[in-house]
C-alpha cells in the first residue's frame, strides 16, 4: 500500500487539531469551569441551585416543547411532499427541487425578516388588508407569538424532511413493494407493513435533525418571538449580553452542550442504521408520470402548499424592501449608503456588506484549508482511530453557535489569548462552524477514490505529492468548491456566534439586520428588508453557481 507515513499524516492533522483545541475546546472547558467555579472557587451548589430554579426548568421545558411541536408539524406537512417527489415526475420538478435549497441556506435572520415582511404588523399582508378593508389595526396579529416562529421553523425544516425522506423513499427498491403486492398485500398493507418500516430510519433521522435545529433555534425566536419567549439559546444571549449574569449563562450553556451531544449521538446511531437499508441503482429512474386525476389533485395541492410556504415570504421580503409608504421606492437601499444622525450605526450600513464578504472570504479560506487537511488525514486513516477523529471533528456541529460565541467572549478577551479587538475573531468563529461542513463535503469523495488509482499513478512514475496533486485534487475539486461555497454561505448568514463576537464598528450583515429590526421607525424596518434582500441574493447566488456547474459538466459516477 502506498500510504503516507503516520508521522506525516499526523503532521497534516496537527493544524486542524490545534485550531480545534484553541478555538473550540478551550472556550468550552472555560464554560464548564465557570459553571462549577463561578468566582474561581468550587461551588457546585450554586450550579445545582440554578438548575433547580423554576426559571431554568421553564426555559428548558419551553425549548423542548417548541422543538417537538415544530418537528411534528413539519413532519405532517412534509411527508406527503416527500411522497410525490419520490414517486412522480411533473412539470417544474427540477426547478422546485433547486428552490428547495433556498430556505435551508437562508440565514435565520433573513428568514425572520422575510416572515416579518409577509405577516408582521408592518408586513405586506397586513398593509394590504388595512388598505383594502379600511382597518385601523393590522388584522393579523401573529408577531411575538409562538405560532410565528413555529411557522418559520416549518419554513426552513420542511425542505430538510422533503430531501432526506424523499430521496430515501425514491431509493427504496420498487421491487420490494411489488414483491409485497405479488404476495397478496393490498396497497395500504404494503405501505403499512413494508414501506413505512423501511422508511422509519430516514424519518427518524430527519425528525431528529429538525428537532436539533429547532432546539438550538436562536435568530428566529429572538426576532419573531419577542421578549416573551426564550429558548435556551436566546436565554444564554440575554443572560450574558444584556444581564451580564455570566455564571447563569454558563450553566445554561452547559445544559445546551450536554443535550446537543446526546442528540447528535443518537442521530449518528440512527444514521448508521439508516445506511443498512437497501438501495436500488436507479434512485430517480423509478419516478412515473402523473396519470390519474386523483394523483393530479394530490400533486397540485402539495405544490401549491410548497410554493405558498417557500416563495411567499421571500417574495414579500423583496417587495417590502422596495415599497415605502408612498409606493415603490429605492429609498431603503440608498439609505444603506448614508450615515444618519439617529442611526444605530457608527458607519454607513452598507459597510456591513463589505465586512461580511471580507469575513466570509477569510472564513472560507481557513475552513477549506483546515477541511482539506483533516479530510486527507481521515481518508488515509483506517479503523477505530479514524472514526474517533471523525467524531472529534464533527463536535462543533453539535455545539450551538451561541454557546461558542459565549465561550469566546469569556476566554478570548484576556491573556493568554487576547483577541478582543482583533478582526480575526469573527472569521475564526465562522470557520469553526463551517469547517465540519467542509469535511463532510470533501471526505466522501476523497474516500470514493479507489486506492488502485493512486497505485496506478505511482507505478506510472508519480511521486506521492504528484499523486495527490494530479489524481486526488482534480477528482475532489468539485467537492472542494461545494465545501467552499458552503463555508462562505455559512459565514455570510452566521448570527449566533456573531451576535457575541462582532465589534460595534464592524457589524456583519445579519447583525446589522438584527439591529435594524430592533429599532422603531419605517426607515429602519425598510433598511432591514433591503439588507436582508441583499444577503438572500448573495447566499443564493453561490448555490445557483454550484447548480450551473453541475449542469454544465455532469460528473460521471465512475466509482459506483
Amino acid at each position: 500500500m502506498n500510504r503516507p507515513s503516520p508521522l506525516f499524516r499526523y503532521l497534516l492533522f496537527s493544524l486542524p487539531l490545534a485550531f480545534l483545541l484553541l478555538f473550540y475546546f478551550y472556550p468550552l472547558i472555560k464554560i464548564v469551569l465557570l459553571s462549577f467555579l463561578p468566582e474561581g472557587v468550587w461551588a457546585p451548589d450554586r450550579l445545582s441551585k440554578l438548575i433547580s430554579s423554576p426559571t431554568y426548568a421553564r426555559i428548558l421545558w419551553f425549548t423542548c416543547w417548541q422543538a417537538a411541536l415544530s418537528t411534528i408539524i413539519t413532519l405532517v406537512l412534509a411527508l406527503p411532499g416527500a411522497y410525490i417527489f419520490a414517486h412522480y415526475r411533473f412539470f417544474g420538478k427540477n426547478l422546485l427541487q433547486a428552490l428547495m435549497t433556498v430556505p435551508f441556506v437562508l440565514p435565520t435572520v433573513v428568514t425572520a425578516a422575510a416572515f416579518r415582511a409577509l405577516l408582521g404588523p408592518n408586513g405586506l399582508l397586513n398593509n394590504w388588508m388595512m388598505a383594502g378593508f379600511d382597518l385601523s389595526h393590522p388584522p393579523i396579529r401573529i408577531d411575538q407569538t409562538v405560532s410565528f416562529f413555529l411557522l418559520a421553523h416549518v419554513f426552513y425544516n420542511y425542505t430538510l424532511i422533503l430531501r432526506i425522506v424523499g430521496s430515501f423513499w425514491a431509493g427504496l427498491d420498487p421491487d420490494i413493494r411489488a414483491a409485497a403486492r405479488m404476495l397478496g398485500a393490498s396497497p395500504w398493507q404494503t405501505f403499512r407493513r413494508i414501506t413505512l418500516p423501511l422508511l422509519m430510519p430516514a424519518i427518524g433521522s430527519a425528525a431528529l435533525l429538525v428537532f436539533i435545529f429547532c432546539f438550538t433555534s436562536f435568530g428566529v425566536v429572538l426576532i419573531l418571538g419577542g421578549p416573551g419567549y426564550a429558548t435556551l439559546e436566546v436565554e444564554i444571549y440575554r443572560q450574558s449580553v444584556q444581564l451580564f449574569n455570566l455564571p447563569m449563562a454558563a450553566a445554561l450553556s452547559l445544559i445546551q452542550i450536554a443535550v446537543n451531544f446526546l442528540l447528535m449521538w443518537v442521530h449518528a446511531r440512527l444514521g448508521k442504521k439508516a445506511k443498512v437499508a437497501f438501495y436500488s441503482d436507479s434512485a430517480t429512474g423509478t419516478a412515473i408520470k402523473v396519470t390519474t386525476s386523483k394523483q393530479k389533485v394530490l400533486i397540485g395541492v402539495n405544490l401549491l402548499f410548497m410554493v405558498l410556504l417557500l416563495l411567499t415570504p421571500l417574495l414579500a421580503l423583496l417587495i417590502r424592501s422596495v415599497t415605502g409608504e408612498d409606493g415603490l421606492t429605492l429609498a431603503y437601499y440608498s439609505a444603506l449608503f448614508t450615515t444618519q444622525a439617529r442611526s444605530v450605526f457608527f458607519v454607513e450600513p452598507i459597510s456591513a456588506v463589505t465586512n461580511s464578504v471580507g469575513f466570509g472570504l477569510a472564513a472560507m479560506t481557513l475552513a477549506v484549508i483546515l477541511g482539506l487537511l483533516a479530510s486527507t488525514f481521515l481518508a488515509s486513516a483506517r479503523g477505530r482511530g479514524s472514526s474517533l477523529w471523525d467524531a472529534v471533528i464533527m463536535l462543533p456541529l453539535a455545539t450551538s453557535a451561541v454557546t461558542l460565541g459565549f465561550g469566546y467572549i469569556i476566554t478570548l478577551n484576556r491573556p493568554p489569548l487576547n483577541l478582543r479587538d482583533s478582526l480575526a475573531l469573527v472569521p475564526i468563529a465562522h470557520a469553526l462552524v463551517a469547517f465540519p461542513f467542509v469535511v463532510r463535503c470533501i471526505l466522501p469523495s476523497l474516500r470514493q477514490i479507489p486506492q488502485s488509482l493512486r497505485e496506478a499513478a505511482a507505478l506510472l512514475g508519480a511521486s506521492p505529492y504528484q499523486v495527490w496533486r494530479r489524481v486526488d485534487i482534480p477528482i475532489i475539486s468539485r467537492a472542494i468548491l461545494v465545501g467552499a461555497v458552503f463555508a462562505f454561505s455559512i459565514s455570510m448568514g452566521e448570527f449566533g456566534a456573531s451576535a457575541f463576537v462582532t465589534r460595534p464598528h464592524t457589524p456583519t450583515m445579519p447583525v446589522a439586520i438584527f439591529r435594524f429590526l430592533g429599532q422603531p421607525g419605517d426607515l429602519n424596518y425598510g433598511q432591514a428588508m433591503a439588507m436582508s434582500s441583499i444577503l438572500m441574493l448573495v447566499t443564493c447566488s453561490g448555490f445557483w453557481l454550484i447548480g450551473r456547474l453541475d449542469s454544465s459538466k455532469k460528473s460521471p459516477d465512475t466509482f459506483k
Partner: protein
Amino acid sequence: MKEVIEKQMMPDSRKILTVENLSNRYEGQPLLQDISFSLMQGEILCLLGPSGSGKTTLLRLLAGLEKEETGSIIFCGREIKDVPPHKRNFGMMFQEYALFPHKTVQQNVAFGLEMQHCPSHELSRRVETVLKMVGLSGLEHRKIDELSGGERQRVALARSLAPEPQLLLLDEPLGSLDRALRDRLTGEIRTILKSLAVTAVFVTHDQAEAFSIADKVAILHHGSLQQLDTPEKLYRTPINATVARFLGFQNLVKGTVDSNSAFQSSLGALALVEQMVQPGKKTTLLIRPEGARLASCSTDETDDIQIAGIITGRQFQGSTYKLTLQVKELSLTFDLPIDPAPPNIGQSIELLLNPSAILLISS
C-alpha cells in the same frame, strides 16, 4: 372414439394461460408487439432474449405490475386485465430478490401466508416445509443482510412458493450469482418446480440456463416473439437468422436458391436435401458447428458435403477444438473432436459436413 375425443380435449383443458395480441408502450415507444402464446398446466416456459427485448416487461404484464395497451391475458379461462396484482395469486421472484430487509428469513417467507390469513400453526408448518424444500432449515431467524447470495436466492424462491401460487413468475432469478452456483441452482430450481408441478414463466438472457430449466423456450427480440418451441427443436431448427444468431450460431451464409434447387452462395453451389428446406423465403444457410468431421479420417462413401479451407484459428477448448477456417471469402467455425487433432494454423483442411447439421432459414 371416446379416447380420441379425450385426447383432443386434454390439451385445451390443461391450457392455463393464454396471451393474445399483447402490445404495450414504454414512454411512447412501442415495446411489446403483438405477443401471443399459451401455456399448459405444469409447464415451465422460458422467455429468452437479449436485454431490451421486452422479456421482463412481458413478465411484469403477466404479474399485473405493468399495464398492457392492447390484447388480453386469459388465466384459467378468465380475463385478468383488471385484476390488481395482489388478487391474482401469482408468485414472483425478482431480479435482485426484493427481500424485505427489515424482516427475518422466516418473516419473509411467512408474509404471503399472513396476507391469506393463514392460521398460525398452519403457517409455521408451511414455512418450515418450504424452507426445508429449498434447503434453508436452521436459518429461519437470520436477517437478510446476513445471508449469502445463494441463500438469498433460496429465500426468494421459498417466499414466492409458500402461498402456493397458481403461476410462478421468475425474473432472471440467477442473474447476480457466479457461474458455478448458477449451474447448481438451475438444476435445483427445475427439480423443485417439477416436484410441485408449478406452472412457471422464467425470464433469462442465458441460453444454457433456459435450455436446462425450461420445457418450452420463447425467443424475444425487439419486443416481438420470434419462436416458441422445446429447447431441442429450437436448437435444431431455428426459424430465422435472428434466432440462430441469438443461439450463438456463427456460420450463417447468405445466398439464393436457383431453379435446380441448389443453394448458390460464396461457397459455390450446394445441392439441397429435402429436410434442409422448409417453407417460406429462405436466403440463409445455417451450418451448425458440431456437424463437421475431418475428411481424412473418413473412408466410407457418404452423401456428406465436403468443404475445404485454410485454418485461421485453432483453439483448444477441452472436449473440442474450435476451428476457424477461411473458405473462399467466408470465415466458418466448427467444433471438432480432439482426436485426431486437427492440423495447425495456416494449413489447408478438408471437412465433411453432416447434412442434418445444415438448415436453410430465412434471414
